[in-house]
């Protein structure tokens, strides 16, 4: 009798464990490029800063507005999953000329989990940018696999 009871308990445990990971997506699926803004004090010193933005939009036509008038210490931008590069126009409030930043990368579609499906991971290769308002830029993390880590620093 006890043998049968244990068998039933074990089977119920198996049933409860099955399928949940197929039905439910429990992981964050956002994969975006995070850009942090910094104020350059001199060639070796810098500090994080807030940037008042008029807008940020995609470079491709027709442009898509990603961020509208607001102040940020960092922004997260979606990279193009259909091409190996993405371009963004960053227009600060304080200047007339906007800066353009182009990011070149390799991409790979990956099954995040059965519940969540596929996402695209990116590995940054190079970046190009105009210097109307931007002083310099650096890639601090080439691997874009989530939204939480900073990938690029823009120095103003």
């Amino acid at each position, binding site marked *: 009798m006890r043998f049968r009871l244990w*068998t039933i308990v*074990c089977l119920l445990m198996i049933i409860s464990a099955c*399928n949940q990971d197929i039905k439910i997506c429990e992981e964050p699926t956002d994969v975006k490029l995070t850009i942090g803004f910094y104020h350059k004090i001199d060639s070796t010193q810098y500090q994080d800063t807030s940037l008042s933005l008029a807008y940020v939009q995609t470079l*491709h036509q027709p442009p898509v507005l990603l961020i509208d008038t607001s102040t940020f210490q960092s922004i997260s931008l979606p990279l193009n999953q*259909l091409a190996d590069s993405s371009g963004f126009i960053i227009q600060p409030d304080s200047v007339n000329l906007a800066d353009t930043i182009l990011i070149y990368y390799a991409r790979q579609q990956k*099954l995040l989990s059965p519940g969540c*499906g*596929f996402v695209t991971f990116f590995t940054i290769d190079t970046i190009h940018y105009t210097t109307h308002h931007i002083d310099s830029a650096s890639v601090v993390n080439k691997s874009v696999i989530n939204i939480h880590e900073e990938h690029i620093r823009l120095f103003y």
Partner: protein
Amino acid sequence: MHIGHAQQKTDTSAVQKDTLSAAEHPGTQPMRHDSVMLVSHDLRLGIDLSRIAMPFLQPGRRDVEVSADMQIIPNLYGVVESGYHQMQIHKTGLFEYHSHGYFYRIGIDKNILPPDPNHQRQDIAYVGFRLGHAVLQQTVNSYHITDTIWGNVDGSIPTQTIQGLWLEFVAGLKIQIAKYVDLGWSVRGRTLLNHPEQHTNVPPYVIPGFGKGSSRQAFDFNYSVFFQIPLFQSHYTIHQKQHQP
């Protein structure tokens, strides 16, 4: 195999012979009290009944698992397990996944029940280990990623072959319910020895014979029926040494 099949029959002539041999060298040779066991080497074939229920627990999943074991020396059993796995996942609007593969495990079981003085018991309780290997082929027929900014992504991933290697600890019972028929269960803890998920952008949902591919550890439960095929018997001599005072 059961302890009952390792029938412990003392061969008195062997004991007498060894005792006399030891007595010829008193003080220098240890006294030997050897005994001879009659060991039945029955082939026990099993099929895991819990796998039959798998399609009802996980739609799209099919598993078959069979086993064979034989007593090598008293209370020590060599075990081979093998099986087939098939999985289909259809997530509407996300992806279609199909995989199939096979596995085998080899290992040893040790009967931990004390000897039955009446040689009537046919049941065993055992602990053991396995080394498992699986080969899996998986295909993503289609996937879809929704992207409202740059455009949706649609694609497919051709067939990939993935291998898994793991070590497994097992404990269980096998109880005779009829002549030549046993019923038993086992619990198993497994740990992967290789990293199959590192070589693919589609981590396997299930590694055949191991379990969920998303984890490096897996626990499992088997509930099997076994059929015994008597093959042959052999004599196994147990050497016991006792030093003279």
